[in-house]
Structure formats: C-alpha cells, structure tokens
C-alpha cells in the first residue's frame, strides 16, 4: 500500500523525465503526455482518498525504506488526515494547470517537464515523514518554480524569480538549522518525524521555542505571513497563469502544513509559547492583505494580496490550536486552493483577451462574456465566504475556534470579512458591470479548454460548501489528535 502512496511522487517524476526526453520534432506531444501523467496521478490520489480509513488515528499507507543509516535518515512516507487533502489538492490543481497551459508556445517540453517535477516535489512535501526527506522535497519545489517564473514569466520575471528564490532559500536554511538542531538535541540519532516526537516534546520549552522560531521563519515566508510576504505579489504578477495557480493553490499550503507538522506534533511546547505571536501576525496578515488588496489596480496583484489575507485565516486557526480552529484551517487550506486557483485562471483568461490586467481597462464585460463574468462573480462570492460555498466553512470554523483563546483577534478577523467583501465586490463591479469598455467590445467568451480547467474547480467549491463532512470526515481524527496534544 505504501508504494501506491510513493506513486504520487514517482509518477510525476517519471512523467517529467519522459516529457523532457521527447524528441524536438514532437512539438504537440508534451501537453497531452503531461495531461496523461497528471490525470493518472489524480487517479492515484483519488484511490488513496477512497481507501483512507477515516476512523484510524495512525499514519496510513506507510512506507519505510532504509536510506542513509550513517545520518539516521530513512525514506519514510505516509499520510494522515492533515496531509491527504493536500495530496489530492496537488494532484487536482496540477492537472488543471497543465490543461490550462495550452498557450505556452516556447520550450514546451521543458515547461511541462518542470510542472510535473513541481508536482513531484509538492506531493513529496506532503507525504514525507522524515525530516531530511521533507527538506529535500521542500527544496525540490524551489528549483522548477524558479525556472518556471524565470523563463515563462512576464517582463520583470528575473527580478521576481530571484526574489522568490532568495526569500524562500533564506527561510529554508533557517529551517535546515532548526532541523539539525532538532537532530542534535534529541539524542535519538534519527530524523524520523514520528520517532522524534517523544524526545523533542520533552525538550525544555525555551529550546523548543528557539528551534521552532528557526523553522517557523521558513514556514512563515512560504505561507506568507506579513511581514515576510513581499515576494508573493511580485512572483504572482510575473508568473504564467498555470504557475500562479499552483503557487497560490498548493505552494503556500506547504507553509501552513509545515506549521501543523512541526508545531503541535514535534515541538508542542515551543509552539504553545509562540502561538500568541503567530496569532497576532495572522490577524495582521488578514487585515493588511485585505487593505492592500482594496487599493490594487492590477487584477492579479489584487488576487495575490487576497491570498495573503486568506492564508491569515488559516494561520489564525492553527495558532488557536482548538479542534474547531485546526479543522477550520485545514478546510480553509483546501478551499483556498480551489478558489485561488479559480481566480487566477480567470485573471489569466481576461489577460489573454485584453493583454492587460488593469482593472480600469475592463468594465461591463458581462455584456460580451457573460459566462466568464458570471464565474468571476461566483468565484468572488466563494472567496468572500458566502454560505454554501467552500470559503464559508473554513473561515467560519476558524473564527469559531479562535473565539476561545483569542477573542479579540477572532472579532477582528470576523470584521475583516467586510474588507474582503469590499475589495472583491468593488473589483467585480468595475470589471464585470457598468459601462462596457469600448476596447473590450469584441472579447470572446470562455473557450472549451478554459471551461475544462475552470469547471471542476467550480463544482468542487460548491461540493465542499454543501457537503463539508466529506473533507471534515477525513481530517477529523488527525485534528482531534493535534488539539489533544495542545490541550485545548
């Protein structure tokens, strides 16, 4: 069974190699081939989802192979309720991103090969149960992302790619320091995330807090939390559409997922000591991200800052550490993956038609592209947390969960929804409604490819909104375990 789980990494990896080795003459082949590999991987992830035991608290589909005994590290893979939704989200969004990349015209096989490599790295981060393996995958994600932005990005891509790289690399090295510290202080001579639990939880609180600070900086950069967020808008603006989808949809979740893994499960004492700081930064991110989004004139930047704000809710839920808070964080991670993916696909579609992302360059497009405009309205409602759609479930649970430990923060986060509604609805009004901008009068409506990429996300958003218990059921046992460790 463990090998099925390993397939979520190996399948895209093999796909990346196969696509990279295609002959130059096969110009049409890279995308269909990448679709096949990504679809197969979604199949594997769905199989895992279907066969996951929702009542067991143990790690499932576990695989443990010896790797480097000299360094106390082994290839240890497995999923629990916290990681399985992320594995599914990775597989789903990668497939849609590949489908949406129809218009990539240069160096196609390199592009699709890197997207698949990215998928392998992302899946690896979520299934790794050994700190070194985790760190390797964490870094593997960096390399394709750097090239994807740097080669296929917008005019200012080099600056954005280097900024992204240096930010995350600086964070990674702090994390590596923390991991080495964990290894040396633990005395277990092992990097196993499960095996280390007992020893690391027994460390003095101050030591735990120091280690968690080092690791937490890397995670906070990835999430990103204010004040570590400045790389995100640049990276998003320059990245091609499909890459933005993966960046916002999955990459950011590496950070919040890491908080769940390293915090309550490895360094609970340090996490508890630092959680007021995390909660404060989370609330600042929520408000700051929304406030900045309010005054953006660039559609993509607006969506990028809205990600900062929405990831703030995830972090508030994690910092609260209550059952409802963590469950809300988990649901919000999944839901934001869907909605951010949706919004970036829409921005990409508009950009492709108008060759600009300035909000003022649009206006009244509902008259020429009713379907696209309609989906934009739908996505905005989902993003601002309309009941019945996925965004509501996550944010509601987060605020509920945070009320106990951080009443004021919860209240602020609740009121910030007004800001969210403000920037989203104002954007929708300026883009979709009002006077039709004469330059946009001939804009074509949604194409089949776009519908194939966008449709599943809309359906999933509704499904999670109406039947959250499917997602909650998978996560429940793991969330209860985390909340119990933290004693909340």
């Amino acid at each position, binding site marked *: 069974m463990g090998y099925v789980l390993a397939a979520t990494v190996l399948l895209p990896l093999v796909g990346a190699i196969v696509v990279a080795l295609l002959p130059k003459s096969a110009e049409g082949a890279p995308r269909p081939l990448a679709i096949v590999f990504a679809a197969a991987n979604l199949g594997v992830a769905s199989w895992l989802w279907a066969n996951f035991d929702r009542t067991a608290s143990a790690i499932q589909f576990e695989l443990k192979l010896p790797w480097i005994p000299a360094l106390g590290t082994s290839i240890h893979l497995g999923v629990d309720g916290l990681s399985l939704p992320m594995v599914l989200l990775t597989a789903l969004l990668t497939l849609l991103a590949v489908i949406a990349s129809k218009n990539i015209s240069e160096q196609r096989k390199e592009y699709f090969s890197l997207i698949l490599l990215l998928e392998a790295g992302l899946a690896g981060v979520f299934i790794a149960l050994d700190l070194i393996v985790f760190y*390797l995958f964490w870094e593997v994600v960096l390399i394709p992302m750097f090239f994807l932005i740097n080669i296929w990005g917008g005019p200012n891509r080099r600056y954005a790619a280097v900024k992204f790289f240096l930010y995350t690399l600086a964070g990674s*090295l702090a994390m590596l320091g923390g991991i080495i510290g964990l290894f040396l202080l633990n005395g277990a001579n092992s990097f196993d995330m499960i095996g280390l639990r007992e020893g690391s939880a027994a460390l003095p609180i101050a030591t735990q807090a120091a280690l968690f600070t080092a690791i937490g900086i890397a995670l906070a950069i990835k999430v990103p939390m204010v004040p570590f967020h400045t790389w995100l808008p640049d990276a998003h603006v320059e990245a091609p559409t499909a890459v933005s989808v993966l960046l916002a949809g999955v990459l950011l979740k590496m950070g919040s997922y890491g908080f769940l893994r390293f915090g309550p499960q490895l360094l609970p004492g340090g996490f508890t000591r630092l959680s007021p700081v995390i909660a404060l930064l989370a609330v600042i991110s929520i408000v700051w991200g929304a406030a900045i989004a309010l005054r953006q004139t660039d559609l993509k930047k607006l969506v990028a800052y809205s990600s900062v704000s929405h990831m703030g809710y995830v972090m508030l839920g994690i910092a609260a550490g209550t059952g409802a808070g963590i469950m809300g964080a988990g649901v919000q991670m999944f839901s934001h993956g869907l909605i951010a993916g949706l919004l970036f696909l829409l921005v990409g579609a508009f950009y492709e038609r108008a060759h600009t992302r300035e909000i003022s360059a649009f206006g009244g497009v509902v008259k020429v592209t009713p379907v696209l405009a309609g989906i934009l309205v739908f996505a905005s409602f989902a993003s601002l947390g309309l009941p019945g759609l996925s965004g509501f479930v996550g944010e509601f649970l987060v605020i509920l969960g945070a009320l106990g430990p951080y009443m004021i923060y919860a209240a602020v986060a609740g009121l910030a929804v007004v800001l969210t509604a403000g920037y989203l609805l104002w954007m929708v009004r300026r883009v979709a409604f009002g006077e039709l901008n004469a330059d946009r009068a001939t804009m074509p409506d949604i194409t089949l490819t776009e519908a194939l990429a966008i449709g599943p996300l809309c359906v999933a958003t509704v499904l999670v909104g109406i039947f959250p218990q499917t997602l909650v059921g998978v996560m429940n046992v793991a969330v209860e375990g985390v909340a119990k460790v933290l004693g909340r």
Partner: protein
Amino acid sequence: MLAVTDMNVTMQMLLPEIIVAATGALVLILDLIWVRPLGAAPSARPWLAYVGIAGLALAAVATVAERHTSAALFSNIFVVDPLAVFFKVLFIGIAIIVLLYSVETLPRFTRWPAEFYALMIWCTLGHMMLASSNELFTIFLSLQLTSLPLIVLIGYAKHDGRSGEAAIKYLLLVLVSTAVLLYGMSLVYGSLGTSTLPDIGAELAKRTTIGPALILGLVLLLTGFAFKIAAVPFQFWVPDVYEGAPTPVTAFLSVGSKFAGFALALRIVVTALRIDMDWHITFGVMAALSMFFGNLSAIRQSDMKRMLAYSGIAQAGYLLVGLASLSQEGVGGLLFYTVAYGCANLAAFGVVMIVAEHTKSTRIQDYAGLARRSPLVGLSLAVALLSLGGLPLMAGFMAKFYVFVYAAKAGLIWLVAIGVMNSVISLYYYLRVVWQLYVPAGEDLGEMKVPVRSSVALTFCVAGVLTLGIFPEPVMQAAQAAAAALFGG
C-alpha cells in the same frame, strides 16, 4: 597496524604505485617507438591516453583489492590503510576523467601529447604516495613528485603567454612552500629526534611545555599543505595559475592537487599534532576566511575559469570545516565531500573545455543560451553548479549537510552558521551562470557537437553528482571506514 618486513609482501602492497609508475613510462616508450615514427599522424595519439587510462584502471583494481589492509611498510614510513585506499581510488578516478578530457583539448595547444599524459600519470603517482606517506621525508619526496610535473603541465601551452606566466608563478610558489616546509621539518626533527608521524605524535603527547622552535616547526609544517589546498591565507596564487594553465590541468589542480593536500593534512593533524591546542579554532578560522574570501571574490568574476578558481578557494573552506571538527564523523564528512566536489568540479571544467573548443572563450557571457545549443552540456553545467552551491538532490547538498551536522555536533555552531551563510552567497553566482545557460543568446549559434570522449567523461561526473545526492550511502560508508582507520588505528 601490521608492520610488514617481508620484501615480497612489501612489493605486493606497492603494486598500485608500481603499475602507475610503469604506465607513465609505457606511454612515453610507445610514443617513441610507435607514434612518433608515424610522423604527425593524429589518429594514433588518443591511444596513448587510452593506454594510460587502462594502466590507471588496473592500478585502481589493485588499490581496491587492498581496501581491508592495514599495514606499515619500510619501518612505518609508508602505510596502506583504508584512508590511503580511499584517496588513491579518488586520485586515479580524477586522473582518468582528466585524461579523457585532454584527448579532445590537447591538439589545440600541442602536437606532442605523450609527455603530457606521462607527466599527469606521474603526478597522480605523487598524489597516491602522499596519501600513504607517514614520515616527513617521504612526504617531502611525494610532494616534489606532484609539484615538478605540475609546473611543466601548467606551462604546457607553449604559445600562450599566460600559460608560461602561470608556470613561473607556480614554480615560485613551489620553491617558497618547499623551503618553508623543509625548514619546518628540520625544526620538528631537530626538536623531537624522530620523523615518523606516529612517533612525533607520541613525543608531543609526552611533553608538557613546547619550545618556540618546535611551535615554529609545526606551524611551517601546516603551511606546507595549506598552499596545496589553496586555503586563505595561502590562496593568492590560485586565480592566475588556474586561469593561465591549460584547462585540463586546471581541472586536475582544482581537485587532485587540493585533495592531496587534504590527504596530507589529515595524517599530520590527526596522527602527529597530538598537543593540547585548540585546533578547532585554527582550522575553523581558516575555513571561515576561505569561504568568505572565495565566495565574495567569485561574485565579481566575469571569466568562468577565474570564477571556478575562487569558488575552489571557498570549497576548500567547506572541506576545512570537516577537518576543524576533528572527529571521526567530521573527517568522514570531509572525505565524502571530496568525492562530491570532485564529481561536480570535474563536470564544470569539462563543460568549460567543451565550450572553449567551440567559442574560444571562457567568459561567462558567452555561455548564454548554452542549454539550447546542447542540452547535455547545459544540463551538466547546471547540475554541477547547483551541486557546488549545495542544492538538494545533488551530491553537494549531502556533502555540506554531512560536514555541517558533525561540525555542529563538535560544538562549532558559529562555523556552521558561517558555512550556511556562505552557501547562500555562493548560490548567487552559481545561479547567475545557470540562469545564463537558459536565456536566449543574442544570435543563433547553432547546435554544439560534443565529442564522444568528453561526453562520456561528463556523463560519468554528472551521474556521480546525482547518484551521490540521492544514494550517498555506499560512498559514505567507505568514507566512514577510511576515517575510522585514521582515528581508531
């Protein structure tokens, strides 16, 4: 350790060295009786390199056969132990790769390659003997055996003024460092009355006070290998010599010569320097300075060979971190690092040679769009540089990780912090080149044909980098066994 007195057994133990010495001679003889009579017929010349490679491969087999041996020859002046075997296999591997590269590159600057091959093989013999030397005078002789051929090799491109200049510079360096080393040896011998390293260690351990003459002697002894490994403050010769020397020789210098210095350093430091002094600090400071100097200087370079020269100084710093931890695991890390660095650096220099064949240039700006002209070459350089920068999945990451973990365990947290900081600095200039590979060149220069021999050597190095990055265990075990031999006896 087993003291060997039987002459037959001794000769058997020396088999790898004998084979290598004979191979060098064979290459020269074949040149005289077979290649030269053919006149300028170029088709026969590669065979001289093949003969050399075959001889070296045979020597490697003979060396590997000694991997479980632990013996002292000639009254303990020459030892055969896992550490020596580890280094000898590494030196032979380096020589084989460089010979493969040379076959393609040599015709550009000389019509008579036989002496080049022979000198390189004999220089490797010197490296191998250095790995086994256990006594001051043997060390001195082995060092000369490596230095003298290198002077000629560096100046081999007779028609290139820079090559001659580099040779003169290296000659002066060798003269100075030899004089310093010899003076140090005489002071140590004069003070202690013995010249084998274990006896020096035993004598030093007995003493409670150490006189100024002995201190000076030990310090001068250390400078002997500091020149070889090109660590700050003995690095000043590196950029000019690396840039001026023919590229295969530069590649050889940057790994073979450097590692020979470390082979020597390990024996001297661990077996002989058994005095109560904080060597952690001495080597730690050297390591830190080398990393900072190398990396900060490399950022400013616009020439690939010079950039790699400065990066080599920084890499010597990382290697010294392993030495500074002065523990068995730390030395194991150092040994693993040599293999990882060797593969990556030889791959990088291989690409430099291939590109120089086509563009006649080593400037970084001429690497633009290389990945489109030849995916293999572009990918190889990218992998090599990312490995040198220490990115995961490459050998360089595992090596740095290994070294840093055990340095931290030895209490050198400050040094690890400096090392990590330097890895970030170094990534800046490595990535700048990698980025260059994938941007479109100003004009379309067409596809780049890569000669078979070069691509074989290149592929081997790149495969080494990736294998060591993903499955480092076998080499790590060999490194640990070699380190254990040094510490545990």
